[in-house]
């Protein structure tokens, strides 16, 4: 197969499936999932060190930053100020200049506050961060984020953890048509076909956490997602047939018995 690498701001990615590391049973399971998925990007959250139980294991002892690209997020941040604070702390922790920027607008939907997101994207891009803003499926906002210096734009397929799939493929299509930066679907995927749909639309990658972590067999689901993303990407590049209302025979009429 021809090389089809995703490159963002000079960073080369070996997989178009990106993996979140939240909600797993333990770090052993996390590692198995990451390996089964074939992903080379894993997202992480920034939180206080456990002072009381200092012997508690550290995620990065399991998911080796030399082997995987660590993408810290600003999950849980509801203001620009907090998102900037977490981003800067994440960078200072010393594994990455990349940030999956979340400025959440509402607890129930976890939809992004796109006004704050845009402001934070602009500031962090100027500070040299490789910014991956988590946004909704609004084509105008996607464009504005690109203009503000986002390295890629990460529209949701559906609310985080909802498993509702790609709720608005037409908006994604419009975002993709206008985009000059990669588009990575973040959130909403429920099962493998959702990931395939995102890739068939022409998205550059898909980020998945809950659909894998919450599956009965997360490791098997990670493998399913790996093939789903590859499949969708190939189908996109191969170019699907047009849709028609009526049948077109696949077998020749010539040579039939009269």
């Amino acid at each position, binding site marked *: 197969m021809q090389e089809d690498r995703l490159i963002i701001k000079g960073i080369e990615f070996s997989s178009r499936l990106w993996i979140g*590391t*939240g909600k797993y049973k333990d770090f052993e399971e996390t590692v198995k999932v990451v390996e089964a998925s074939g992903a080379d990007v894993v997202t992480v959250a*920034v*939180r*206080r060190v456990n002072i009381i139980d200092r012997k508690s294991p550290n995620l990065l002892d399991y998911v080796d930053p030399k082997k995987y690209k*660590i993408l810290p997020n600003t*999950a849980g941040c509801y203001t620009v100020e907090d998102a900037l604070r977490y981003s800067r*702390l994440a960078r200072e922790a010393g594994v990455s200049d990349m940030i999956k920027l979340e400025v959440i607008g509402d607890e129930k939907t976890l939809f992004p506050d796109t006004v704050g997101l845009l402001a934070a994207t602009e500031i962090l891009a100027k500070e040299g961060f490789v910014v991956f803003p988590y946004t909704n499926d609004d084509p105008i906002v996607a464009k504005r984020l690109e203009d503000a210096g986002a390295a890629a734009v990460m529209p949701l397929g559906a609310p985080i953890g909802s498993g509702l799939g790609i709720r608005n493929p037409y908006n994604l299509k419009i975002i993709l048509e206008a985009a000059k930066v990669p588009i990575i679907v973040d959130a909403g995927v429920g099962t493998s076909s959702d990931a395939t749909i995102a890739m068939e639309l022409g998205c550059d990658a898909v980020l998945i956490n809950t659909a894998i972590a919450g599956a009965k067999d997360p490791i098997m689901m990670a493998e399913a997602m790996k093939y789903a993303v590859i499949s969708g990407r190939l189908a996109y590049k191969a170019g699907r047939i047009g849709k028609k209302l009526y049948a077109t025979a696949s077998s020749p009429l010539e040579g039939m018995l009269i």
Partner: protein
Amino acid sequence: MDINNYMNIKLNGKDHLTKALTISQLLNELGIVSERVAVEVNRRIIKKADFDNYPVKEGDIVEIVNFVGGG
């Protein structure tokens, strides 16, 4: 324990007694490897290169963060 040798700081949201005079000493005292953490003192992020010299003072609000599983 001689309470006079200790300073009271707010560490990750909790009261904490420490003898550490610098960030490096504090991390050492806590058994935390500085490699993959970030430290904030009174809302100011401290660069790793400054850990050895940055002082810890009575009443400081110190945050030490690292990476955990997240989406």
